[in-house]
């Protein structure tokens, strides 16, 4: 089954979550209060290096969670485990039998095709049975939402960094994911592009999409997140609602934690 640190198979759009033997059992417990993803004792090591200590972690429906921490603190690993593409110790349960998810990376991988084709292929991959007209409609809506309709025929790789990231978001959103995961989505972008992306993410969150994203930018975390999780050397150091995270009660610990100078 799941082997520590090894990749699992593809994350399907509409079928049972990959690498998760207990999802069928968990579907019996579907309810408004059930977390979207539930990790118990999930840890990851690559050989002798421990990337993530065994943790318990819940992603609640509708939350916007920011993972913050230094490089190598385990943010990306945790995202991958939540996504279900990384083998790990412990268990991962989803609150829904067939959880629709999408992940966006710091630098999006786009095929050497037009913007439009990239979208259509992503929709096809997510749901093979979707009729062509619906695929067409969804692609159009996604492009409009991120403001790239004028560029539909352009080669995707010819777009600017910010535009490419917005395309990645369109690609993710077109599949109407319940859970959206992002790994440092604005780290390579200029300030304007960053703002545009943040606006889109805020919009998705307002629509009810559950979002988990990692960032170096505490300001971004404060702007977008409902809950902030600080990771350090593979452990969860502080996991608090956004307001608490930044208020004086946590400030003392925060000052000690962020001696590396990552304050907004």
């Amino acid at each position, binding site marked *: 089954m799941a082997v520590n640190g090894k990749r699992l198979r593809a994350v*399907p759009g*509409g*079928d049972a979550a990959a690498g998760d033997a207990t999802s069928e059992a968990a579907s019996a417990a579907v309810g408004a209060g059930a977390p979207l993803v539930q990790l118990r004792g999930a840890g990851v090591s690559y050989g002798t290096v421990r990337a993530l200590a065994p943790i318990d972690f819940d992603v609640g429906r509708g939350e916007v969670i920011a993972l913050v921490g230094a490089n190598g603190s385990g943010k990306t690993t945790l995202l991958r485990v939540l996504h279900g593409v990384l083998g790990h110790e412990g268990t991962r349960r989803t609150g829904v039998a067939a959880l629709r998810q999408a992940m966006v990376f710091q630098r999006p991988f786009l095929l050497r095709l037009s913007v439009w084709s990239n979208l259509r292929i992503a929709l096809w991959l997510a749901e*093979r049975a979707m009729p062509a007209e619906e695929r067409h409609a969804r692609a159009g809506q996604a492009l409009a939402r991120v403001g790239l309709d004028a560029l539909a025929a352009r080669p995707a790789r010819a777009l600017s960094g910010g535009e490419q990231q917005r395309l990645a978001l369109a690609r993710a959103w077109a599949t109407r994911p319940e859970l959206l995961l992002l790994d440092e989505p604005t780290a390579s972008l200029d300030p304007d592009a960053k703002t545009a992306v943040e606006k889109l993410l805020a919009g998705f969150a307002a629509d009810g999409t559950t979002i988990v994203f990692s960032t170096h930018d505490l300001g971004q975390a404060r702007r977008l997140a409902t809950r902030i999780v600080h990771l350090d050397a593979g452990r969860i150091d502080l996991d608090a609602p956004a307001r608490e995270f930044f208020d004086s009660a946590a400030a003392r610990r925060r000052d000690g934690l962020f001696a590396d100078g990552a304050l907004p």
Partner: protein
Amino acid sequence: MTTRIPLRRARRAVLVLLACALPLALAQPARAQDRSIVMASTTSTEQSGLFPHLLPAFTKATGIQVKVIAVGTGQALDMGRRGDADVLFVHDRAAEEKFIAEGWGLPRRDVMYNDFVLVGPKSDKAGVRGKDIVAALTKLAASPAETFVSRGDKSGTHAAELRYWKTAGVDAPKAKMAHYEECGCGMGPALNIASAKNAYLLADRGTWLNFQNRGDLEILVEGDTRLFNQYGVIVVDPAKHPNVKRELAQAFSDWLVSPAGQETIARYKIGGQQLFFPNAKP
């Protein structure tokens, strides 16, 4: 999703096989209709230039195409044994008789003869010039300073050469003579080597006349009746290989020994010189 992939895979596999079967499919109709035979002959015959002169005449008379595979006599007979040729046209009587005795071919017929010549450097330090091949070879055996090049490829020419050496008292020239070199190659390449090394060599007149790269070589011994090289035609036995095109191959054999075929053979000349002398029995 789990049910669709195997279907797609199967469909793709079928398409792949179809795509590769296409050239094979295209080849089939051609085979069904063509009137042609495969003839295994020797490289020396091909290099003499006889075929472009002889075969079109046959095709014109009968409408049958002849596809020539030119290899060494040994390989030609082997092709007959494997059934990959319909008719053989070679020049090694002993090997041919053996082939027929083993049951692979129908009785052979004489068609024509050409002759071998001993070529060597103009300076002829071994002093072999003349009309006696055995005397020449005896002298060569005793001249370690002069190189002798042999084809060494189990061809009719090679077999004949070994017979002459035996008559001259050398029954294993490769072992006995340090200055004897085998190339395992056809007549043309062997001539190339001899030309480059200024060596002695037994060649068939046809290839020699066509050969351009002579260097210092010239004919030193010719006209000895022992140098005559008899050609025979053999139809591969259909009892052993049912795929042999018996009638077409027989037509070829019949034409070769007919007056028309014999005359065509006699008419082939290089530089005004006749190369092959028809001697089919009537």
